[in-house]
C-alpha cells in the first residue's frame, strides 16, 4: 500500500538559515503522527509547508498520491487547528463550523445537519448560537477542531493546539482529540514540544532537532530504544552513569529513573550504594535524588507505606544490565 502522507527531501531556508534540512517521512492513512522537538527544531515549519503557508525551498509533499507541494493553501483540502484557536470572532459557533462547508458550496440544510453532527461530536450540542468570546479556551479549541474536520479534510493538522490551555483541560482535550481522530480515521499531524503529550497520543512520533529527524517510531521504541543521545535526553528523564561508576563498564551508560529500584527484582544484577540527597513525595510516586560517589541519580519509586525514607539514609540501588543505555553521538 502506498503511503498516504509522504514528505520527500523537504528543505526550507530563510535566507542563509536552513531550518528544515532534507526531511523524509511517509505515513499511512488514519495514523496519528506527532512532530516533537524543542522550539526552533523545524517542526512547525514542516507543518506550515504541509498546510501551504510556507513554500518549500526544495522537496515534495504528497497526500494520497497527489503532489500538493505547489498548491495554494485553499486548494489542498486540509483542516487545521491553531494554537490561538483562531475562531472568527464575528461569527457564531455554528457559522464558524459551517464556514468551510459554505465555501465548498454545500446547501444550507445539509450544512445545518453537519454542524449539529459536529457539535454532538465535540460534546457541545446546542452551542451553535454562542459567540467565541462567550466560551472558555477549551470550548473554543473544540469548536476549532469541529470547524477543521467539518469539511472532511484529507489531513488534519494540529499546531500545538493544547499549549494555550491549562493543565487539566490539556489532558482531557488531548484524549478527546485522539478519540475523535480514531473514530473518523482521519490522518493527523500534531506538532508539540511536550514529549508526554506526544507519547500519550501518537501512533508514531517524529523526534526532530535542528532541522533533522533524530528518530521516527512508536512512543514505546523512542522511549526504550532512543536512537541518539538527543532523543534519550529530550524524551523522558535520564540518569547518566559516568564510566567507572559501574563495575566492568567501559564507557558512559544511562538509565531511566523508574528502572532503578530500592529492592532487588528478579532481573536486577547490579547494585550501587548511595545516600539520599533529596526526596519529593508526589503521591503515587516518590522521586529520590541519590548521591552515589558524587554522581546524583534520580530514582522514581512507587509509594511505599511501610517505612518513610529520610534525607541522609543510606540505600542500596538495584538495576539490571539490560536496562542500561549506551548513548551514541
Amino acid at each position: 500500500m502506498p503511503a498516504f502522507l509522504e514528505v520527500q527531501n523537504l528543505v526550507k531556508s530563510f535566507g542563509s538559515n536552513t531550518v528544515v534540512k532534507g526531511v523524509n517521512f511517509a505515513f499511512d492513512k488514519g495514523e496519528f503522527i506527532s512532530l516533537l522537538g524543542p522550539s526552533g527544531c523545524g517542526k512547525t515549519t514542516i507543518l506550515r509547508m504541509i498546510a501551504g503557508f510556507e513554500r518549500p525551498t526544495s522537496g515534495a509533499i504528497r497526500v494520497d498520491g497527489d503532489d500538493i507541494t505547489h498548491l495554494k493553501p485553499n486548494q489542498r483540502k486540509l483542516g487545521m487547528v491553531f494554537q490561538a484557536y483562531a475562531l472568527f470572532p464575528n461569527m457564531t459557533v455554528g457559522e464558524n463550523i459551517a464556514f468551510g462547508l459554505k465555501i465548498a458550496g454545500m446547501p444550507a440544510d445539509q450544512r445545518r445537519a453537519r454542524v449539529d453532527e459536529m457539535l454532538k461530536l465535540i460534546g457541545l450540542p446546542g452551542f451553535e448560537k454562542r459567540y467565541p468570546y462567550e466560551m472558555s479556551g477549551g470550548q473554543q479549541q473544540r469548536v476549532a477542531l469541529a470547524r477543521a474536520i467539518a469539511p472532511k479534510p484529507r489531513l488534519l493538522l494540529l499546531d500545538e493546539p493544547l499549549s494555550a490551555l491549562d493543565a487539566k483541560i490539556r489532558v482531557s482535550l488531548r484524549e478527546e482529540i485522539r478519540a475523535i481522530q480514531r473514530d473518523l480515521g482521519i490522518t493527523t499531524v500534531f506538532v508539540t514540544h511536550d514529549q508526554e503529550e506526544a507519547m500519550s497520543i501518537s501512533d508514531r512520533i517524529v523526534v526532530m532537532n535542528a532541522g533533522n529527524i533524530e528518530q521516527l517510531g512508536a512512543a514505546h521504541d523512542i522511549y526504550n530504544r532512543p536512537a541518539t543521545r538527543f532523543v534519550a535526553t529530550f524524551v523522558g528523564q535520564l540518569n547518566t552513569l559516568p564510566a567507572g561508576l559501574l563495575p566492568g563498564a567501559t564507557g558512559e551508560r544511562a538509565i531511566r529513573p523508574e528502572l532503578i529500584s530500592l529492592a532487588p527484582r528478579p532481573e536486577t544484577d547490579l547494585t550501587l550504594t548511595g545516600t539520599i540527597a533529596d526526596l519529593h513525595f508526589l503521591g503515587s510516586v516518590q522521586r529520590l535524588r541519590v548521591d552515589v560517589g558524587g554522581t546524583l541519580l534520580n530514582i522514581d519509586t512507587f509509594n511505599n507505606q511501610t517505612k518513610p525514607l529520610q534525607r541522609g539514609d543510606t540505600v542500596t540501588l538495584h538495576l539490571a544490565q539490560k536496562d542500561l543505555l549506551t548513548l551514541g553521538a
Partner: protein
Amino acid sequence: MKSQKFWAWLVFALGAAYFIIPLAATFEFSLRMRRGEYSFDAYASVFSDPQFAASFTYSVIVGLFTIVVGILVVVPAVYFVRLRMPWLRPFMEFVTLLPLVIPALVLVYGYIRLYGSSSLIPFTGSVFGTNILLTCAYVTLAMPYMYRAVDNGMRTIDIGTLTEAAQIMGANQLQIIGKIILPNILVAILSGAFLTFAIVIGEFTIASLLNRPAFGPYLVGIGTNRAYEPAALAIISFIITWGAMGMINVLGRFAPRTSARTD
C-alpha cells in the same frame, strides 16, 4: 486634596468656557433675528432656502462616495501591508500623514494643473469629472483618519492566523477580506467613516476652487451676505458634526464584543 480638586475643576471650567462661551454667544445671536424677542426665524430662513437643502444633499452624497472609496482603498492596503509587508508600515504612516501637512490649497492647485481641461486627463472638463476629482480629493483629505481607524481596528484582531484559518478551509483572498476582516473591523471602519463625513460636510477650499455647489462654500456665501443666518448655520453644522462624533461612541458601545478570549 480638596485644593487639588479645586484647581482641577478650575482648569476644566476655563477649558470648557473657551469652547462653550463662543458657542453660546453664537446660539444667542442666532435667536435675535426678530427685533426685541428671541425666535427661531433665522433657522426657519435657513431651512426654507432651497440652496441649503441642495448644497447639503450634494455634500452628503459626495461624503458617502468618499467613505466608500476610502474603505475600498484603505482596508485592502492596510490588510496587505500588515500581513505581507510589515516593513512598509512606517512608510505608510508617513504617507497617510501628508494630507495633514500639505495645505488643501496646494492640493487643489496641483489637481487643477494636472487634470485641467487642457491636460491629458481633463477631469475638470465636465461636471461629472469634477465630482470624481472632488471625491478623490476628499478621500485624500480623510486618509489620515481613515487609515488610523482601520489600522487600529486590525491591531485588535490576529489577522495573520485568521487569514490562515480561512485559507486552509478553502477561502480566497476576496472572501477573507469580505467575510472575515471587514466584519471584524466594522466599528473601526464606521468611526473612520463618520470622521470622513464630518470633514466632507465642512470642507470649503477644494469645493470652492473646483466650483462645486457643496455645503462648505454655501456656508461661506451665506456668511458674507447675511447677518443672523450664518450663526444659525454654524449651530446647525455643529450639531451635524457632533452627531457624527456621537455616533462613533454609540456604535462603539453597541458593537458586539469581538476580541477573542485567550484563557
